[in-house]
């Protein structure tokens, strides 16, 4: 009954908090718990506990995903290069990330003698925490969202704009020429690619008229002519390509890995880092990969929306949030696989080519895309 109502869209929860409260109510244990808290006048504490549980589940999910992604990256590289990749630790080397973590925790935490200790220590946290905060307005499935901000997309772009500062802090505080050069390159790259990224996202926002990620996803549910899913990739092919290239550049992956470029700068801005601080840069990189792929999916590939909902028999109605989560994860992993696949195929660009591409090609194209979209919207085509 309950899930059938969710199926038909009669009940939609704004966020996971309301979903949890509804399920607790449905089981019939919300009121006793609430009364216990009310006895001590601590109703707000219950709310805080539920939200903390949500965030803990989200962060555990993200950390597990990051660990899986490090394994997947190595496996994909190995497959491209006709190798096996990690095979010994666990089945097909699945526990390799755990061993990597144990190794990195066991390493000595070195701070260079002439480094700026406070900034040096702060930088990995400043890059790691925004990488996790980006997930807060991202819908993982139907009502599986921590908080549906009405400025969700702006929040995501704003939060990911913190990472250049953290990179510059890390590069400057290391007191090392390679670190500084990597940091300067990374900042130049991030600044020039955030503009086409935001411009092609605005073209999507023109369709939905809302910055909320849930509104963007619901605008993409359903199909045209019964077989083409209503995804924005079909309305915005140029915008999708620009957004994808710009987000791969934002991630700092090959062919745009100038912040790291191990054959020119030793390891870029994290040359001097070791142990857990290095691990935090590493984790932030993969969290960034996951978040950026999730944003691409949310904006252009329909997010968690199931285009062929009518094909699934109604007896599986209880599974809708789970199916939507699975759909979202599959789409996200497709984008992640594309990024890894691209990484194994193409070499690194030159820094002048990167900036030429960003300023002379992508920004004009993004503006053109925005102009055409706005003209079509004004003419009432969509």
């Amino acid at each position, binding site marked *: 009954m309950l899930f059938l109502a969710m199926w038909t869209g009669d009940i939609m929860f704004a966020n996971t908090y309301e979903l949890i409260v509804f399920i607790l109510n449905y089981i019939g244990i919300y009121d006793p718990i609430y009364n216990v808290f009310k006895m001590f006048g601590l109703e707000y504490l219950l709310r805080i506990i539920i939200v903390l549980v949500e965030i803990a589940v989200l962060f555990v999910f993200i950390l597990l995903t990051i660990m899986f992604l490090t394994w997947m990256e190595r496996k994909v590289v190995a497959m491209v290069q*006709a190798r*096996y990749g990690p095979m010994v630790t666990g089945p097909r080397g699945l526990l390799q990330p755990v061993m990597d973590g144990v190794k990195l925790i066991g390493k000595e935490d070195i701070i260079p003698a002439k480094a700026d200790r406070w900034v040096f220590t702060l930088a990995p946290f400043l890059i790691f925490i925004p990488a996790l905060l980006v997930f807060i307005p991202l819908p993982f499935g139907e009502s599986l969202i921590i908080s549906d901000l009405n400025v969700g997309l702006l929040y995501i772009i704003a939060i990911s704009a913190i990472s250049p500062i953290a990179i510059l802090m890390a590069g400057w505080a290391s007191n090392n020429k390679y670190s500084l050069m990597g940091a300067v390159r990374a900042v130049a790259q991030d600044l020039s690619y955030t503009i086409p990224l935001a411009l092609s996202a605005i073209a999507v926002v023109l369709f939905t008229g809302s910055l909320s990620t849930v509104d963007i996803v619901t605008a993409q549910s359903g199909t045209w002519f019964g077989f083409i899913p209503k995804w924005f990739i079909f309305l915005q092919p140029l915008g999708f390509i620009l957004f994808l290239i710009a987000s791969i550049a934002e991630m700092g992956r090959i062919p745009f890995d100038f912040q790291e470029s191990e054959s020119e700068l030793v390891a870029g801005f994290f040359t001097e880092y070791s142990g857990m601080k290095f691990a935090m840069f590493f984790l932030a990189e993969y969290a960034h990969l996951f978040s950026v792929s999730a944003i691409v999916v949310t904006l252009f590939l329909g997010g968690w929306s199931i285009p062929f909902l009518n094909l699934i028999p109604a007896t599986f109605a209880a599974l809708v949030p789970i199916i939507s989560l699975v759909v979202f994860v599959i789409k996200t992993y497709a984008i992640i696989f594309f990024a890894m*696949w691209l990484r194994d195929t193409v070499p690194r660009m030159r820094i002048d080519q990167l900036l030429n591409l960003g300023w002379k090609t992508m920004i004009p194209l993004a503006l053109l895309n925005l102009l055409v979209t706005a003209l079509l919207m004004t003419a009432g085509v969509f």
Partner: protein
Amino acid sequence: MTWISKDWAMGGIIKGLIVTLKHVFRVGNRPTVTVQYPFERMKVQPRFRGLHAVDENACIGCGICETNCPNSTITIVKHNTNWYPQVNVGMCLFCGICVDVCPMNAMKMTGNYELADYNRESLIYGPDRLLFNKEVNK
């Protein structure tokens, strides 16, 4: 107008992407060529130059291998009343000259390549570890 002649469809990148995708899904003759070393080993060829072996009955202790060794790896030492070569594997470059110059064809090279050890002393292979008795083996 140079921009017009550029490959805007990114044909080169797409071509490369297809090649790597074929590798990922093993399309065509693209097998995994690495060997999971400690668990499986590659077949050692018969002329592989690994650890030395000396025929106990054939060796006359002449010292020709000692004088011809480019790294001065071999020294002739006394072992059970006879003189036999002693090889310092840590210095050996596995060139095989000692095998070629041996007048009695007593010096051989085996397929044993797992020679890593914990200290330099145990890398010096004396006659007790190098000698083999052809007639006993028969």
